[in-house]
């Protein structure tokens, strides 16, 4: 049950020979080498495996790899351009929104989708929390993460 899929991974066209039983997370980690994509719960509850598919966040652990065929996939590896961190990544660094780091790539991608969706539109802390509700962090208590996203949105508005 093998199939070739063509995806645009972080802006580059890539082809992968996949088993239809594989999750997108498995293909990204084992074949594409994008190891920022983490397996946490494996059942779509923790968000550690969050990637953007056509700019919408999904849990790649419960998304079949074959479904990504013909679509654009983004992981944190592609958010850093020309040696520059993305605004979301930079804000996470500045606010220290990281402790053990396992959940961080998923949070960065969920926050990226959240801040890109309605550029310039203000989001209060409640809206940010709702936007990140599909990601769990067991270390930070979320305050620094929410502040990082808030800061990133403020910066975009400047």
């Amino acid at each position, binding site marked *: 049950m093998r199939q070739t899929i063509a995806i645009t991974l972080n802006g580059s066209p890539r082809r992968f020979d996949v088993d239809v039983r594989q999750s997108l997370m498995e293909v990204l980690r084992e074949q594409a080498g994008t190891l920022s994509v983490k397996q946490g719960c494996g*059942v*779509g509850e923790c968000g550690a495996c969050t990637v953007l598919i056509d700019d*919408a*966040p999904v*849990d790649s652990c*419960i*998304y*079949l790899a*074959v479904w990504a065929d013909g679509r654009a996939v983004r992981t944190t590896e592609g958010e850093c351009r020309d040696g520059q961190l993305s605004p979301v990544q930079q804000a996470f660094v500045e606010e220290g929104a990281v402790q053990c780091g396992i959940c961080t790539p998923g949070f960065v991608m969920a926050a990226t989708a959240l801040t890109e969706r309605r550029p310039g539109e203000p989001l209060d802390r409640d809206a940010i929390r709702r936007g990140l*509700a599909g990601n769990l962090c067991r270390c930070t208590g979320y305050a620094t993460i929410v502040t990082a996203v808030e800061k990133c949105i403020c910066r975009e508005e400047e």
Partner: protein
Amino acid sequence: MFPISDYKKATTIEEALALMAEDPGLRPIAGGTDILIKLHKGKPGYDRLVDIHDVAALSGIRLNDSGDIVIGPGTVFNQVIANELIQTHLPVLATALATIGGPQVRNMGTIGGNLCNGVPSADSAPALLVFNATVTLRSHTGVRQLLVADFFKGPGEVDLAPGELLTAITIPAADHRDHFGHYIKYAMRDAMDIATIGCAAAVAIEGDRLGDLRLAFGVAAPVPIRCPAAEAAAKGRPLDGELAERVAAAVLSDVRPRDSWRAAKDFRLQIIGELARRALRHAVMNAGGRLPCDRP
């Protein structure tokens, strides 16, 4: 790797129906947020799949010539929520779907899958029940349409024969035009949780009276239910402080909640009465009326 033993991909409804007619043991998979989790946990009976994830004809929302809203069952929750027709004509459905999971799950899970999964806690169900929504079920040999209320057979069980596929969810024009609704989900957390109790109300008001109430609950019985006793107790009554109390009292004869690790039966009964009051009050407000609150 998911323990899938058989996999066929369909790109059209006809192709899916032909595959399922040939092999009725195949189970359709759309968004995967229920089935892939069952497979991950090793639950038997989900390993032979016909993949309808990319059947374009199952996705999208439109108004038909009669003014009915027709929702493609393969439409993911976030697309339903953001859809202009839904925002304009059926905002209560958007409210209900926005309580499901988190952003990632709402980008993957489909409204049709939420119904076909058949759990009593499906957040789409109460909102569809109060608008008299129907499901269209197609097979290789025919098509039938039934009320969402008749689709649920038992916990995890729906009236879907082998070889049948849910191809449309329809909300009749008269129902979404004349009724205004509200949905409240009571859960332990505000996200990534299933409902302890879900309640939808839809009302039509006539002057200072309640012309019609429709009330539906999730997790209040083995399947999502409408509440005929509460609805009868409210019909034609004045919009006064007593109305919400009448509904909250009558609804107790409509429901059969159970004890579970999630919540005790007595607690659920308490929540059911309170959600009935609140959903009714909000629905009346959404219909342009006002229900005074008599309670302290």
